[in-house]
């Protein structure tokens, strides 16, 4: 029986999932909110991005269930005493076990069967400089020079077929759901989806699913026998690293944004509502905060966190727990240093709201300040909170890379896009160039950030009608 380990960020992530579920329940109950969210999903790019984000979120969740495997009973040990592995693994690690275990000695190109660097080997009694066969990548080939292309093509085709099948399954389920919701025959529903006639553009979602399934199918089919994105300097599979990096990006993006909310919301609403000296004091605090260049402030805080961790080794048992605590504290630091912008925005909005009739009426009825702020002001600024939260998400993922480069980001032992880019910097100046870790990090990071950005734009357009005017749209009318 493995021992479950609840890391700090795991706990936060799962709490977040619970909060998200509560929010979804709220949305379903409130027609106005539900209408706004329908508008978000009616936007094609936003819906497609949502599909990608859900996929990344599920990878994150799989990677947020940690455990330490029980070691087999040693001969001399007491019965009943179970020793646990010193390494903490996640469910994702267990699923990707072949990738973790197929470790090479050093760099290898994507899908390679030979090593990247030549070594001196003895062939037929002579010492030759040859690229050695990899330990795992393409190890099943007996005649690699002739079999390799055929094998890769065959596996890819199988992967494509599998992906197609999975996509077809999803499409069938979607059509069935649409048929039920609209109370039409499934043929009619399929036609509506196909012709883009549903209120929510399911066709876009299904095309995205198809794309994801095809790519995922090919990668999955090849990953068992090859290193799809090659291996890094220590021979670790790059695909595995990029998948692990998704969690780091998501944790930073979501937790750090959420960490800004309490301070920003409470102080922002209070400043705008009470005005006077409260306002002055709060304005002073956030002006002080925002007048320090952000990256410097974060660097200063993270340095302090580092010293704190060095002083308190009793807080963590394993290396992973230390890295995780550092990540958690980094999110807290990002939250504590990043609330000024939202606070300013909420203050301005509350200043406007407090003069409105319904707030005045509540005051006249003798409703307390706290209640007015909670019941009347907060719900009316909540959309700003939501918009800023989703916009910040992608900004923070990008920021993580910069912070890791500067040396104040996540722990170097933790997989992250920033760490990968950091390594890539030296790899790109090697000769011949080692481009694949960079390319993998680039592809995944751009996909995640682009999806997050498009989704954020959808949310903003749906919740802030003013921004919709700036959407590029084609019109038949020529500009004057």
């Amino acid at each position, binding site marked *: 029986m493995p021992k479950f380990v609840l890391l700090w960020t795991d706990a936060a992530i799962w709490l977040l999932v619970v909060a998200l579920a509560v929010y979804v329940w709220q949305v379903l109950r409130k027609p106005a909110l539900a209408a706004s969210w329908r508008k978000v999903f009616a936007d094609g790019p936003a819906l497609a991005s949502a599909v990608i984000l859900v996929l990344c979120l599920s990878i994150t969740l799989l990677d947020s269930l940690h455990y330490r495997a029980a070691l087999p009973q040693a001969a001399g040990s007491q019965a009943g005493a179970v020793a646990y592995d010193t390494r903490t693994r996640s469910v994702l690690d267990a699923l990707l076990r072949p990738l973790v275990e197929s470790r090479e000695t050093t760099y290898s190109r994507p899908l390679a069967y030979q090593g990247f660097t030549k070594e001196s080997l003895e062939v037929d009694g002579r010492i030759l400089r040859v690229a050695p066969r990899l330990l795992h990548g393409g190890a099943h080939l007996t005649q690699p020079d002739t079999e390799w292309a055929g094998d890769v093509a065959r596996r890819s085709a199988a992967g494509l077929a599998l992906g197609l099948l999975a996509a077809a399954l999803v499409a069938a389920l979607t059509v069935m759901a649409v048929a039920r919701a609209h109370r039409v025959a499934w043929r009619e529903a399929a036609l509506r989806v196909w012709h883009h006639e549903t209120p929510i553009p399911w066709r876009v979602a299904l095309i995205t699913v198809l794309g994801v399934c095809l790519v995922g199918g090919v990668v999955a089919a090849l990953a068992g026998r090859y290193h799809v994105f090659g291996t890094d300097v220590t021979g670790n599979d790059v695909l595995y690293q990029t998948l692990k990096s998704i969690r780091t990006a998501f944790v930073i993006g979501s937790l750090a944004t959420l960490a800004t909310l309490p301070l920003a919301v409470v102080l922002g609403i209070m400043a705008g509502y009470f005005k006077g000296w409260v306002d002055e004091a709060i304005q*002073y605090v956030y002006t002080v905060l925002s007048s320090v*260049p952000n*990256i410097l402030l974060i660097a200063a805080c993270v340095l*302090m966190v580092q010293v704190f961790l060095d002083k308190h080794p009793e807080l963590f048992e394993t290396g992973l727990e230390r890295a995780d605590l550092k990540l958690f504290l980094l999110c807290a630091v990002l939250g504590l240093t990043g609330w000024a912008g939202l606070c300013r925005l909420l203050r301005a909005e509350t200043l406007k709201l407090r003069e409105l009739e319904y707030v005045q009426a509540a005051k006249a009825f003798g409703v307390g300040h706290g209640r007015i702020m909670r019941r009347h002001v907060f719900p009316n600024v909540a959309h700003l909170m939501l918009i800023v939260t989703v916009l910040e998400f992608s900004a923070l993922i990008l920021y993580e890379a910069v912070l890791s480069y*500067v040396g104040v980001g996540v722990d170097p032992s933790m997989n992250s896009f920033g760490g990968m880019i950091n390594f890539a910097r030296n790899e790109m100046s090697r000769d011949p160039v080692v481009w694949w870790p960079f390319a993998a990090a680039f592809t995944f990071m751009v996909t995640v950030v682009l999806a997050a950005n498009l989704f954020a734009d959808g949310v903003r357009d749906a919740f802030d009608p003013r921004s919709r005017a700036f959407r590029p749209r084609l019109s038949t*009318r020529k*500009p004057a």
Partner: protein
Amino acid sequence: MLNYLVRRTLYGILILIGVNLATFFLFFTVNTPDDMARLNIGGKRVTQELIEKWKSERGYDKPLYWNAPKAGSEKLTETIFWERSVSLFTLQFGRADSESAGDIGDEVTRRMWISIQLALPIFILQIIASVSFALLLVMFRHTRLDLVGVVLCVVMLSISALFYIIVGQYLFARVLKLVPISGYSGGLDVVRFLVLPVALSALARLGTEARLYRAMFLEEIGKDYVRTARAKGLSETVVMFRHVLRNAMIPIITSAGGYLPYVFMGSLVFESFFGIPGLGAYVIEAIGKQDFAIVRTMVFVGSLLYIASYILIDIAYTWVDPRVRLA
């Protein structure tokens, strides 16, 4: 105007006092000077004597906030807090924590000019590039060009600046060999070293800024005075450049001005990637060496520049828009 500037400056000083308090608390109370000494001396054999020596060399051997044994006002002045604060406000930054590094003030003044050489062209090029791109999109609004342009912006702003740097260095310095990969030299030769970071930095922020400016222009275009201008029979070009551009300058200055502190601070990432020994590279080195004195000083210098640049922005408003009166 003068009245306003004096008031702003006084408030700025108040803010700086706050920054100073916050950084002091962060650097000295969260971790005591003893911790810093231990970290800096490093190694296993850290004796109390070594720590005391390290502290007295750097003037950290006093109480933090309150020196009880002393008499009168010395209770307050004979403390680390007082001495550090006074020295910061008089711009005497003292020596760095680590052994090899010298006086921080000298380094800052020397490196500041290098940073400006990099950052000022970046700042100007960035505004020109983003504003022209945004104007182009707005001129062709409701056409395919606008759509493609906005999509391009979104894609570009989803790419980390680090990718631009790495690909740019690889392409222009390694493959095409147009410029050196990194480094810095004095004299006119410096252009060869700076051209790539300047271009890449402008490119990296093009997506974000052009999209923002495009929205600002579109907001202006919807206003009545634009319709009036068109009704007068002015050509679209004149409307755009003489009316819309001038009015959109205010929000543009606000947003571009937010970037101004980095003009002096130097872009941390660009400086260290391209081996340009400016202020940004200094900070990164200090972080690597865990030299708290430098980081602390740079936080102070950074906020000083930030406050100064915001006062500059306010002055710029009056220059761009005569309607704005600072009072």
